[in-house]
């Protein structure tokens, strides 16, 4: 199998910063690292398995109604994840609120099914789905690391900034917890990536 399938989505064609997919549902979950990790993992599972099943069924799906069929496949896995989170991690599923359900409309999943799974064998499609989900999770984790560290001085809810700093006058940056900062941070990530990869720059 081509190594490019799982190498590319991590950096070169990262779904969030290069293809601009799936920003919708999930910038709001990057306030805490824990939520971001669970969200990233859920998206990885859903992307992987829906790509796998869409690819298995690709010769049987009539072209005209394929969007509906894909939505049903994706919705099935999202319902499984949602029920699992509600059963075993109730508090977390409350704090993720509607964003678990919004995985259905996450453009990465539909995008990968349309662009890759419908034209490839099941196993490469599965790997492609997982890799794209991972590229997405990676961005979430980087964002949430900075937002939680600078915004509340913790990582995974463990205090990392020593009390002596606070005594000396250090303060948490409250702006980091608010929504606008997620957008500005992702703008900065795009900026850094495009400074390194000059061919991505827009004319």
């Amino acid at each position: 199998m081509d190594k490019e399938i799982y190498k590319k989505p991590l950096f070169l064609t990262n779904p969030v910063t290069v293809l601009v997919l799936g920003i919708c549902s999930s910038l709001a979950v990057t306030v805490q690292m824990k939520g971001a990790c669970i969200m990233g993992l859920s998206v990885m599972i859903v992307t992987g398995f829906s790509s796998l099943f869409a690819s298995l069924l690709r010769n049987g799906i009539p072209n005209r109604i394929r969007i509906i069929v894909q939505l049903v496949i994706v919705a099935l896995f999202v319902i499984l994840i949602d029920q699992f989170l509600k059963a075993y991690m109730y508090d977390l599923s409350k704090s993720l609120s509607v964003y678990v359900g919004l995985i259905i409309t996450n453009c990465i999943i539909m995008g990968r099914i349309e662009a890759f799974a419908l034209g490839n064998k099941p196993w490469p499609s599965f790997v492609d789905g997982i890799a794209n989900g991972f590229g997405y999770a990676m961005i979430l984790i980087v964002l949430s690391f900075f937002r939680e560290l600078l915004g509340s001085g913790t990582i995974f809810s463990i205090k990392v900034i020593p009390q002596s700093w606070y005594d000396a006058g250090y303060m948490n940056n409250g702006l980091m917890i608010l929504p606008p900062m997620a957008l500005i941070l992702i703008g900065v990530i795009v900026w850094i990536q495009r400074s390194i990869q000059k061919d991505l720059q827009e004319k």
Partner: protein
Amino acid sequence: MEYLNLFVKSVFIDNMIFAYFLGMCSFLAVSKNVKTATGLGIAVTFVILITLPVNYLLDKYVLSAGALSWIGPDFAGIDLSFLSFIIFIAVIAAITQIVEMVVEKFSPSLYSSLGIFLPLIAVNCAVMGASLFMQERAYASVGEATVYALGSGLGWFLAIVAMAAIREKLAYSNVPKPLKGLGITFIMTGLMGMAFMAFMGIQL
């Protein structure tokens, strides 16, 4: 008065884009000129305005715990809420299809300029998000749900048109090369979000 309060709150304070990041994909891709942005904004507002009351009624009379009791006492114990994702998305997909056909018939120029983004309203997070927020917040009546739908749709419309206007002007300014296009759009959305935070706490 309550309706007005809810309306203002859903347009400015709980703005779909600036407070919840919903519908970002098409927001970023279609906000390059004001005319197309206006067209898409109206289409999204329209789809939210129709789907949300329909989903509200489905949620109240079919899906939530004990909702089927109007059929008979035997059905009172049934809880179908785990099906809500799939039902909501099916309703949204069907209504989007109808809107697409109507736009194609009555305004072919708008149809061609919106292109792929018209069918993609079905997977626009703002539409699905509005339905899920409606379910989570448990609005008291179908009237409240409709007002919320109108407000959040108009909020999205306002955001995309404002962004398109800024981006049209931005074409003449000298942005650092790696930041051009996507990067600066993110940062501008963030700054506009900060401006919208000024509305926080408004009560009518």
